[in-house]
């Protein structure tokens, strides 16, 4: 057996100094040669642990073999049997926590770059311009409504339309895609990719109704009169604030507002696109997850002179993907770790001027096993900033539960679902994705969509609840 190459085939990317001034994608993707080289690292395990690590169970060794044999059509078809959004997952999946974490090579060396290979195949297909339409089963005459056009809803729609059901997707915003479109920035996930996937869905016959807020223009109960089943995939879009004084000063944004302005409304192309965003000279972001990284990295690209991250724990405890933290460091984001804001101070004219912070130190481990940060008395200090982005998390939007009293929710305001079928407490209504789990990942939302699609299929066949 040939000697194992210990490291992943590197992926070329835009140099940091250049990319911080544009919104173009950072990594360039593999060439065919690079992909084949990386594919050869895979050991083709008899019992592939990588597959167990993937929330949708993609047949990873098989698609990697096809790459090795340069049978790209077969490779992408194999992926698409289980994952309809490979171009997206290959880019934004936290692979190091999922498939790649379980890869056997990872025990001694770097794991196989599964995500990059998945992305390679998906990009190849898109560039070829001929995504093959799967066979759609004979019309069943059943109708399913999908609320929310994020990854969970898209997955349900795709899986069920293939079974021959009629699918109508209802989306509140003027673009479909959910967080993929309004949240994750262009430089990590070009929007054209998302729109190509949505187009694919339309070609399969799925109808997408934009500008339609369920709970307002149509209630869930009204949907149930018209449809045989309803899936709720409305995400976790309600932004949290910390309740600090000065939070309503001008210049203070929630991550959702900041990213929605920048991405969905294209404020980075202002003034061609007319939605403004306050660029600021010093932008501070509060939080340590992927969302915080996206905000801090967007700030520089929008034109801020300095971008500062404020996080209450240590670097090792940041929930963001290692790759994103690394990219942020390369781009010159200043990390203020073990630091927590306690108040925001204005300039006397309604604008943010200073963030009053306190130093933290790590105390005892809490239930999650992470050492809990505790404030250091009297360590208060000021961080000057004219823009602040609060990226500390989101919870599900209560609009649908509020207008549908017989849907049970948990104390975290998520919709209660049966993990095996996606059923809610209301007959004919299923849910999945962030609305059921709280903020999670794209592939987990898709996994939940797959489960719900199976649950709906069974319900439509048997009529049993």
């Amino acid at each position, binding site marked *: 057996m040939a000697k194992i190459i210990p490291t992943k085939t590197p992926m070329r990317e835009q140099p940091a100094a250049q990319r911080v001034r544009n919104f173009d994608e950072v990594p360039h993707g593999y060439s065919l040669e690079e992909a084949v080289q990386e594919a050869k690292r895979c050991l083709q395990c008899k019992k592939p642990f990588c597959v167990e690590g993937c929330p949708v169970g993609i047949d990873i060794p098989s698609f990697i073999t096809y790459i090795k044999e340069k049978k790209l059509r077969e490779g992408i078809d194999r992926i698409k049997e289980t994952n309809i959004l490979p171009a997206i997952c290959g880019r934004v999946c936290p692979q190091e926590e999922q498939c790649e974490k379980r890869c056997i090579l990872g025990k001694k060396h770097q794991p196989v770059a599964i995500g990059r290979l998945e992305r390679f195949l998906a990009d190849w297909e898109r560039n070829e311009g001929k995504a093959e339409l799967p066979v759609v089963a004979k019309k069943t005459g059943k109708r399913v409504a999908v609320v929310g056009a994020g990854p969970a809803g898209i997955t349900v729609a795709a899986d069920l339309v293939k079974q021959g059901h009629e699918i109508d997707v209802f989306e509140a915003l003027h673009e479909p895609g959910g967080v993929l479109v309004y949240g994750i920035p262009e430089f990590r996930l070009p929007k054209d990719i998302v729109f190509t996937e949505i187009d694919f869905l339309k070609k399969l016959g799925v109808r997408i109704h934009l500008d339609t807020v369920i709970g307002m223009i149509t209630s869930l109960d009204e949907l149930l009169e018209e449809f045989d089943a309803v899936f709720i995939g409305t995400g976790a879009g309600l932004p949290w604030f910390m309740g600090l004084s000065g939070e309503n000063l001008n210049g203070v944004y929630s991550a959702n507002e900041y990213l*929605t302005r920048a991405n969905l409304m294209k404020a980075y192309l202002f*003034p061609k696109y*007319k939605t403004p965003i306050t660029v600021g000279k010093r932008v501070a972001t509060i939080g340590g997850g992927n969302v915080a990284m996206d905000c801090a990295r967007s700030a520089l690209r929008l034109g801020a002179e300095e971008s500062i991250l404020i996080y209450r724990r240590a670097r090792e405890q940041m929930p963001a993907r290692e790759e994103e933290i690394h990219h942020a460091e390369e781009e010159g984001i200043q990390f203020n770790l073990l630091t927590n804001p306690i108040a925001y101070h204005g300039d006397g004219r309604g604008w943010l001027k200073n963030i009053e912070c306190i130093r933290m130190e790590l105390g005892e481990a809490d239930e999650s096993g992470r050492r809990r940060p505790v404030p250091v008395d009297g360590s208060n200090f000021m961080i000057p900033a004219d823009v602040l982005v609060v990226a500390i998390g989101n919870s599900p939007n209560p609009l649908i539960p509020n207008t549908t009293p017989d849907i049970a929710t948990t104390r975290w305001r998520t919709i209660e679902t049966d993990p095996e079928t996606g059923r809610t407490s209301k007959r004919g209504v299923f849910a999945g994705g962030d609305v059921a789990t709280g903020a999670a990942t794209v592939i987990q939302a898709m996994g939940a969509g797959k489960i719900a699609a199976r649950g709906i299929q069974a319900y439509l066949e048997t009529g049993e609840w």
Partner: protein
Amino acid sequence: MKIIDKKIIAPNVHEMTLAAPGIAEKARAGQFAIAIPNRFSERTPLTLADWDAGKGEVSVVFLEIGDATRDLAALTTGDEMYSFTGPLGQPFDIDKFGKVGLVGGCYGIGGILPAARAMQAAGNEVVAFSEARSSFLLYWNDKLEEAAHDVRYSTSDGSLGRKGHAHDLLAENLEEGEHFDRILAIGCTFMMYRIAQVTRPYQIKTVVSMNPIMIDGTGMCGACRLSIGGKTKFACVDGPHFDGHEVDWDVVLARRKAYLEEEIVAKER
């Protein structure tokens, strides 16, 4: 969404009617929609001023003040609106209160019309206060006179009704001993602030229709947050109507100015 009719009803004030059967069927007094006039424009909240469920039409009234409303004004009869989402927000709390005063200024003159109809239908005595700088800036007088029992005008130049503002007129009425069980005000922030000031000593429940900057209108972005009675509320889903005596007006008036600088860049382009 097709624009069925678009006209100028007073200088700088536009009325637009759209084919929106779903919204027309569901709309209730006090709700709004979000319009994107063309694909480069902002998402712009507009109060639903009139609708006809039978015909499937809704009308909005807007003032051309900045970029977004200029793009709206550029659309004409027969054009397509890029995006139009509604109804959004909570409707007005409509009940039999007794005597209700509805105060409308600028776009809010349109905004109080559905409230007048609903309040009248609920058995209230409805007094509408319509204000503008001058009589030629007032609109929908006929519609209001039909929907309310009494319409009281005020103009800054005295060309119609009382000289001054609606809050001057309301203050005068209250001083004279007239009693109102409830006041609703829609219009510019400053007008609503003044109305809330006037009614405060009389402890008349005063509902104001807040108009902060909004983006999605579904509770997702937090741009529309307001401090109401010390609590943070999202105007698009919790409101837009709030008790005017609980609104933290200082914060509201400060947030108003948020995008001044960027708007100037857009204009200089």
